[in-house]
């Protein structure tokens, strides 16, 4: 059976060049960069070379790069770091409703610790209105965080414009560039940001490594305490192989930024066109301001996990929403924020292309998708022509409502019921 991996927004394979470099720093040059002897010096030099590579990709100085264990830690460090460092004078944070859970759940945590959070709406294409940012800023605002490229629907936000507003207001701006880094140009200067999160495993580097850009002079409280690594911003023996892998991945991404995404956009548009030729389908996310590898389509009357399961049976890897929310029970918060009904949101399928995706891969997926949608629709009680149930028949579920008030606020549903491996 053909196997087609269209879930590159969830994670990517590590490139050979990257893996080879990492292997050396695991088995041969395995030193601890804090050590003063030659093993330590070699590890330290490699780490600084990686820092320079990452700095080049982001358009910043090497001294402004702090290595992390990934995108989630980067988002947490940026948001909690600024929030707690400035909490005596500022207790307000502004984020969009379509941020990754690493941002949203950090904000929920902060709400429980004396902070106020404004969650900005988006339009039907998933765009944040910079004017909304301007209006939301108060004298007690310390930080605005709006992601660069959305992980579910691929919409690219107007960060530079938002940055002009935050600069003027003297408020820090963080952007989560986990999905955009290596796919579209990023530059912290041009984007007017003070903090930027990237993650290696989304750009053909290893899981467990990432970086946070911290503009020089930005005050942050560290999350993790211990040795004075990473200029005291991130204690813990540095993950040298991971950092080396991130560095090589960043260098390759930077060098190839012109070629790869162009061909990818063509393939993506072929995929989107094919999916939209299925009746009652709609594209989610902005039609043009969009990451080059992202296709996200909702199909009326069918449910996401069943589509994924059926695709999996024919060797195709896709997801609903993000990798994270694809295993959650709740419909995607991104799609709901964009105004989709819960059932439209539940019926979305995200396919994300990678460096090695071919036209044949796309055509194979399209040949399988139509029959799957038809089969599931034939089974759906929501599809047209199905006999409508009477009001009374929904009573059983209505009865459950009475218990709702007892509930805790539901947390992240990742790894929740809906996600199951077969």
């Amino acid at each position, binding site marked *: 059976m053909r196997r087609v991996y269209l879930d590159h927004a969830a994670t990517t394979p590590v490139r050979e060049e990257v893996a080879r470099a990492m292997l050396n720093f695991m088995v041969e040059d395995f030193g601890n960069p804090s050590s003063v002897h030659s093993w330590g010096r070699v590890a330290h030099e490699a780490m600084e070379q990686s820092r320079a590579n990452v700095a080049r990709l982001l358009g910043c100085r090497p001294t402004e790069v702090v290595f992390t264990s990934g995108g989630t830690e980067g988002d947490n460090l940026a948001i909690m770091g600024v929030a707690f460092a400035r909490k005596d004078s500022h207790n307000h944070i502004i984020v969009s409703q379509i941020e990754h859970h690493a941002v949203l759940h950090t904000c929920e945590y902060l709400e429980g610790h004396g902070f106020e959070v404004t969650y900005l709406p988006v339009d039907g294409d998933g765009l944040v209105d910079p004017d909304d940012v301007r209006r939301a800023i108060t004298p007690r605002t310390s930080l605005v965080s709006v992601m660069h490229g959305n992980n579910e629907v691929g919409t690219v936000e107007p960060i530079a414009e938002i940055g002009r507003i935050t600069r003027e207001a003297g408020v820090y701006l963080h952007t989560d560039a986990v999905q955009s880094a290596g796919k579209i140009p990023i530059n912290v200067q041009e984007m007017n940001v003070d903090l930027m999160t990237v993650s290696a495993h989304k750009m053909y580097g290893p899981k467990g490594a990432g970086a946070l850009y911290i503009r020089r002079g930005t005050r942050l409280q560290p999350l993790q305490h211990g040795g004075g690594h990473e200029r005291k911003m991130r204690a813990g023996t540095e993950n040298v192989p991971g950092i080396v892998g991130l560095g090589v991945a960043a260098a390759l991404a930077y060098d190839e930024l012109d070629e790869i995404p162009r061909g990818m956009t063509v393939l993506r548009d072929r995929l989107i066109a094919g999916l939209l030729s299925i009746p009652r389908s709609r594209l989610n996310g902005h039609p043009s301001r969009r990451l080059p590898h992202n296709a996200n389509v909702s199909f009326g009357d069918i449910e996401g996990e069943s589509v994924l399961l059926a695709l999996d049976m024919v060797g195709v890897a896709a997801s609903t929403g993000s990798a994270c929310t694809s295993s959650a029970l709740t419909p995607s918060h991104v799609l709901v924020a964009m105004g989709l009904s819960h059932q439209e949101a539940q019926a979305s399928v995200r396919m994300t292309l990678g460096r090695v995706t071919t036209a044949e891969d796309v055509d194979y997926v399209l040949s399988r998708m139509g029959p799957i949608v038809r089969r599931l629709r034939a089974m759906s009680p929501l599809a047209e022509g199905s006999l409508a149930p009477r009001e009374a028949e929904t009573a*059983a579920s209505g009865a459950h409502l009475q218990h709702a008030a007892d509930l805790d606020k539901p947390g992240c549903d990742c790894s929740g019921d809906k996600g199951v491996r077969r």
Partner: protein
Amino acid sequence: MSKELYTDKVMDHFMNPRNVGEIPDADGVGQVGNPVCGDVMRIYLKIDGGRIQDVKFKTFGCGAAIATSSIITEMVKGMTVGDALEVSNRHVADALGGLPPRKMHCSNLAADALLAAVNDYRVKHGLSQIGEPAGHGAHQHEHDAADADDAEAGRPPCTLRVDGKCVDPQAGGVPARKARIAGGG
């Protein structure tokens, strides 16, 4: 079976579901939304002499929802209405060779929809509605083994629950949001 995986039987019923469809002149029709996830199932019953002569379903839901819908129709076809109501979500899961702990709640959909269909039939025949199906209350609290310990320790937030929260409506574990979606389903 790894607790994270669907059994072959589940996949068989997902890929080749039995009794999919509608019964235009059904004696009872029940539709429910799953309070946990908002997925929806509808069951059609043809009842004659207190016995289920025919049964069909339609399901908008996950793989487990489709598989449990399929197998419950196989199980209850030919049963008396009374016996059918004894079929619990646990029976359904067992018949599928087990469900991952996190998908146990999906099996409620089938038992609930069956009850709703029977009640529809009873209302039409001037009978009173019946409450929870047998075993529903007792068996629905389908957390994994970790929960026993959680209880000992006074429900700490760090241990695994089904989706991190109790999903038993009796225990007040249904997110309002979800219930609302389901109700509007």
